[in-house]
């Protein structure tokens, strides 16, 4: 149990997908203009990363490893992720058309989010059990969502701030992102993954 908790803390805070591994940076800059959209995107990404990592683990162990097809890993994982997104979209549409109308716009954006593929490839490197890899993927995506919401909150405040003309726009956003990354460095040493 303690190992799982440390694994999750490490994945979410110490080795954060965005701030330590630099994955999913486009959505980090692009979908963080408002807190509610960042939270919606974060939850959708959390769901897709966790579900696709479960499928990726099964494909890796029962197909790629079993038949010595490791060289097809990246292509196979991309296919699995695209299928997971499509499955999610179809399921949400079936479960509740109202929810699909409200949230459906985020799903196609996740297909090309490199954080999803990055987490899947990290799982393979980790040689973890199914439950450990699922918890690692879940914690990684929770860390992603956490940073998205924090950064969206900072950007909502930045809009109201008097930023010097030279720094306005992406420069101040990148400076804030850098400061946020430095703040997350404070978690280093708590746990490793």
């Amino acid at each position, binding site marked *: 149990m303690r190992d799982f908790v440390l694994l999750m803390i490490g994945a979410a805070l110490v080795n954060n997908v965005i701030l330590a591994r630099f994955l999913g940076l486009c959505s980090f800059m*692009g979908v963080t203009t408002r807190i509610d959209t960042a939270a919606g995107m974060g939850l959708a990404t959390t769901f897709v990363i966790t579900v696709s990592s479960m499928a990726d683990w099964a494909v890796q162990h029962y197909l790629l490893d079993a038949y010595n097809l490791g060289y097809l890993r990246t292509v196979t994982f991309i296919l699995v992720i695209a299928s997971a997104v499509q499955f999610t979209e179809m399921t949400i549409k079936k479960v509740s058309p109202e929810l699909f109308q409200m949230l459906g716009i985020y799903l196609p954006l996740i297909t090309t989010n490199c954080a999803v593929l990055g987490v899947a490839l990290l799982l393979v490197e980790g040689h973890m059990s199914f439950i450990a890899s699922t918890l690692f993927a879940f914690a990684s995506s929770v860390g992603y969502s956490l940073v998205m919401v924090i950064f969206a909150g900072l950007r909502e405040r930045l809009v109201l701030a008097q930023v010097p003309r030279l720094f306005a726009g992406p420069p101040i956003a990148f400076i804030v992102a850098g400061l946020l990354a430095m703040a997350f460095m404070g978690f280093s040493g708590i746990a490793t993954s």
Partner: protein
Amino acid sequence: MSRDMHSVEGIARVVGVDGATAWLEPEQTGGCGSCASANSCGAGTSQGGIGTVANRIAARRFTLDNISDLHVGERVVVGVAERALVSAALTAYGLPLATALTAGGIADSYRGGDFATMAAMAGGLITGLLLARLVARRLSMRGELAPRFLRRAPVNPPPKSPCGDLPPGGQKHLGRPGVFPGETCGGSTT
């Protein structure tokens, strides 16, 4: 979208009127398809076909009670409660994930095998989706998920970049507070 006191607003276009019901299509204001290369990568809103943004927007058409005498082609501002987006996301994604992880955790602690854990998680996921369906139905009955008509939007808006107004020369203002020049206002994900 802009923030009102208690609602998230978006612009939609009336694409059909059927008696007391109006059909609306949300306008794509951000996300993939809003960059300068949208038409070359197939994400442009002007293109049709499977998987394109135009196709996805068409799939997200919704209805409103036409109490404001809306006509086809009109642009209107619609809104949902500010917390509705987050509660909808929690219902659709959070609930199934929670049940799947709980089922997987219980199975792992009792049986310990990967296959049993995987089967339990799949079962938990399906249970969570069924629960999400019930919760979504309750939210829908309360009217929390339905967009409301707020006001009419300008019919012919001035040409806009994804992040704000374009100046006369077509160049974005560098250094405009609150707008990030060169960004797409969201959606491009790598």
